[in-house]
C-alpha cells in the first residue's frame, strides 16, 4: 500500500483525515446555531429547492388524485356532512366563547392569562426533504424574518410533526418526530397528557419506534404517571401535548394510544402512540407561535 501511494500522498491523506475528524469533533456537541456563511449558502440553495419541491408535489398529487378519484368522491360527500356539524359546533362555540369571556372578566383574569390560549399559526411550504436515512429533517420557507424561532412546534392539520431546529433568515429546518431518540442530545422529549384525563395522566414521549412487520410509525411514551387510577390511560385515548415541558404549548394533537406495555423496570407502563400525522409527502405545515410567557 505504501509503495503505491508514495510518502507525500500518504501524508496529505492523513492530514486531510485529521482535519475532517477535528471538524466533526468540534461541531459534534457545541453546534448551537448556524454561522453566517452556512445561513447564506442554505438560504440560497433552499430558494432554488423551493422552485422544484412544490411543482413536483403538485404533479405527484395530480396523479394520485386521478388514481383516487373514486375515493375523493366519497370523501367529499363525507366532508359535506361534517360541514353541517361544523356549523352547529361554531354556533355552540361562539356561545361558549362569549360566556368564557364574561366569566374571565368576572374572575379578574390578567391580560396575559386571557391571551395564553391565543396561538398564531404560520402557514409554510416545505421546500426540501433531507435524503439522509439517519437525519429526518425538512426545510420550510419561513425563517427568522417571519418571526420563527427555534423550538416552536410544527403541525399539519392532522397533528404534531416536529419542532423548529434551526432558523436562517428566510428558511428553517424542522426536525421530525421520527428523529426522536432518548440518547441523542439534539432531540427534545415532548411532555404529553391524555385528552379528557388532563389532570390525571402525564407522560413523556422520548423516542420513535417503527414496527418492523407493518412498517407503522410509533412514538414511545414513557414515565407515565397516573394520579387517578380510575382514570387510567387506555388504548384508543387521544394523546395531546401538556405544555409542562415548556417547549411545546399545551393542547396540540399528537396521536392515539395503540398499545400499553410493561415499562423497563416494571414500574410505569410503556405506551405506544400512533401519530395522527404522516411524515412523508408533506406539502404544507403550520408553525405554532404561542404567546410569550413572562
Amino acid at each position: 500500500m505504501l509503495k503505491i501511494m508514495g510518502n507525500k500522498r500518504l501524508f496529505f491523506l492523513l492530514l486531510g483525515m485529521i482535519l475532517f475528524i477535528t471538524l466533526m469533533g468540534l461541531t459534534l456537541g457545541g453546534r448551537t446555531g448556524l454561522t453566517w456563511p452556512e445561513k447564506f449558502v442554505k438560504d440560497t440553495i433552499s430558494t432554488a429547492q423551493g422552485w422544484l419541491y412544490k411543482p413536483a408535489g403538485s404533479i405527484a398529487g395530480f396523479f394520485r388524485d386521478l388514481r383516487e378519484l373514486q375515493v375523493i368522491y366519497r370523501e367529499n360527500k363525507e366532508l359535506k356532512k361534517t360541514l353541517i356539524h361544523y356549523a352547529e359546533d361554531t354556533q355552540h362555540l361562539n356561545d361558549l366563547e362569549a360566556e368564557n369571556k364574561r366569566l374571565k372578566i368576572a374572575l379578574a383574569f390578567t391580560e396575559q392569562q386571557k391571551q395564553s390560549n391565543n396561538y398564531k399559526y404560520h402557514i409554510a411550504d416545505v421546500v426540501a426533504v433531507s435524503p439522509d436515512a439517519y437525519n429526518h429533517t425538512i426545510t420550510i420557507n419561513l425563517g427568522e424574518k417571519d418571526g420563527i424561532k427555534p423550538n416552536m412546534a410544527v403541525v399539519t392539520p392532522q397533528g404534531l410533526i416536529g419542532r423548529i431546529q434551526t432558523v436562517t433568515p428566510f428558511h428553517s429546518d424542522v426536525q421530525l418526530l421520527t428523529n426522536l431518540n432518548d440518547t441523542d442530545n439534539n432531540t427534545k422529549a415532548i411532555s404529553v397528557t391524555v385528552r379528557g384525563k388532563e389532570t390525571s395522566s402525564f407522560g413523556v414521549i422520548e423516542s420513535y419506534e417503527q414496527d418492523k412487520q407493518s412498517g407503522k410509525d410509533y412514538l414511545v411514551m414513557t414515565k407515565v404517571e397516573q394520579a387517578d387510577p380510575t382514570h387510567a390511560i387506555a388504548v384508543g385515548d387521544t394523546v395531546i401535548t401538556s405544555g409542562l415541558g415548556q417547549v411545546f404549548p399545551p393542547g396540540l394533537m399528537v396521536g392515539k394510544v395503540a398499545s400499553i406495555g410493561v415499562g423497563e423496570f416494571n414500574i410505569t407502563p410503556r405506551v405506544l402512540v400512533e401519530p395522527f400525522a404522516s411524515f412523508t409527502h408533506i406539502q404544507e405545515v403550520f408553525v405554532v407561535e404561542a404567546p410569550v410567557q413572562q
Partner: protein
Amino acid sequence: MTIKNHYTWLLLFGLLLVQGTVMPWVLPPAWQSSTFVVPHFTLTAVLFIGLFTGRHAALVYGIIFGLLQDFLFYGTMLGVYSFGSGSPGIWRGCCSGGLGAAFCTA
C-alpha cells in the same frame, strides 16, 4: 469532466437539488419509512467522475458537494458528508485499474 468544465458543476448542482426535492415525491412512502431508498445522486456522480477522469477532480467535487449537503440539512455535526463523499475519490486513487473500479463501485 475536469474542474473547469461548467456543465459538470451544473449537473452536480442539479442532482443536489433533485435528490432533496423531486425524489421524496417519486419514491413511494413505504420506501421512505420501512425500507430506506436513499437518493444520493451527487455521491454516485462523484464516484463516476473518480472512475472516468481522475481522483483529484472527484475529491474536489466530493468535498464541495458534501459540504453543501452538510450545510443544507442540519445534522449532528459538520463534515460527515463532505468527508464521506470526498474520500471515495482518494481511495480510488490508491488502487489502480480494474481493481480500483471494483472497489469504488462495491
